[in-house]
């Protein structure tokens, strides 16, 4: 960068209404008229900004709430209530589909998408395209078995992980561990749901596919299926596949 060139931050902020003073904007404008390199930098920053807001127009802030300033008594009461609920579950010993619990933070599934050489983070309700490559990562507090299955809007279930194995595979505890390989998305368009089933024992892949089919035949709407009738802790991510120009 030449000494007189504005910083990338300043150029980026020149794209935000009211962020820089009139004088700063005039300085940048006058600099740009004589500096090809900075004009190219600004175009690149504009493109980056446009790409970001096209890809992620809004943030998913559902899980975040401003942290209230709890009174100690209220905090203690909540702790007692949680303990009581925990003990009740522990003693009741009731096992329902999807009710398996694991140590530490709840198991989680995330994914990233590769589209024409660009890689970006995947998120729920994302619009994906045929040909996109999806790679999954999981987070887990203790060792378990994992199987990932996709259910499309016609009720067709496809096992995404493990590929080439009849049953779920053992995975080690850890944070955001990427699974080997990736899935290339097919030409089906419409809503789909990806389910990750974390279990204590290996699950038969065919059984999970059949269970997904049964769940679909009951409601006929993949978007309404939150869990599959199989044993294990389940995480589900709804996605939509759209055509290239949508």
């Amino acid at each position, binding site marked *: *960068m030449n000494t007189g*060139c504005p*910083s*990338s*931050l*300043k150029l*980026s*902020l020149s*794209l*935000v*209404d009211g*962020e820089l003073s009139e004088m700063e904007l005039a300085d940048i404008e006058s600099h740009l008229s004589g500096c090809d390199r900075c004009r190219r930098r600004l175009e690149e*920053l504009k493109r*980056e*900004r446009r790409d*970001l*807001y096209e890809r*992620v127009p*809004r*943030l*998913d*802030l559902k*899980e*975040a*709430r*401003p*942290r209230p300033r709890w009174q100690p008594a209220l905090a203690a009461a909540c702790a007692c209530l949680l303990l009581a609920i925990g003990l009740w579950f522990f003693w009741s010993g009731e096992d329902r589909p999807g009710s398996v619990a694991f140590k530490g933070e709840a198991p989680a599934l*995330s994914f*990233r998408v590769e589209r024409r050489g*660009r*890689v*970006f*983070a995947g*998120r729920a309700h994302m619009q994906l395209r045929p040909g996109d490559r999806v790679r999954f990562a999981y987070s887990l507090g203790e060792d378990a078995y994992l199987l990932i299955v996709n259910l499309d809007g016609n009720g067709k279930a496809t096992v995404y992980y493990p590929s080439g194995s009849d049953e779920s595979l053992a995975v080690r505890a*850890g*944070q*955001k*561990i*990427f699974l080997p390989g990736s899935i290339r998305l097919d030409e089906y368009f419409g809503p789909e749901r990806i389910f990750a089933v974390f279990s204590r024992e290996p699950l038969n892949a065919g059984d999970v596919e059949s269970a997904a089919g049964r769940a679909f035949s009951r409601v006929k709407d993949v978007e309404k299926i939150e869990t599959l009738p199989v044993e294990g802790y389940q995480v589900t991510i709804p996605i939509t596949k759209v055509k290239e120009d949508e």
Partner: protein
Amino acid sequence: MITRSDVEDLYRRYGHVVLRRCRAILGREDEAEDAMQEVFIRALKYGRGFRRGKKPLPWLFTIATRVCFDRRRLLARNVGLQADAVAAPPGLTPEQRALLLQHLDKCDPLTREIVLCYHLEEMTMEEISAHVGRSRKTVGKKLARFKKESQS
């Protein structure tokens, strides 16, 4: 107290700038985008640093730097995720950037911010001084000290 609509507004204004900061530290597009989302989630959760009427960018950058350094430690523990997929910022080779960030991991938040602004955002001393709200002399001293300690 900060509200959801404040955070949505902050994202619309500064999302791209925060993403650049995350990308510069993490060196991976996918991780940077995750980190950027986390920055705004944390901003909503722990909004005490937010002051209406004051420029929010230094505050957002402080959160972004913390989120990214936490993630770097996490990534370093996961084999196969250490390779940097994004080009290093101008003026720095990928190796220099890796070394810079390694040293910064041990620094106090103010030094981190000053060094990141200087090396990754290409800001001048005056700009950094205005950005962090410290004198130019303090900025210069922090940079010189960082340089000395990272070379020793």
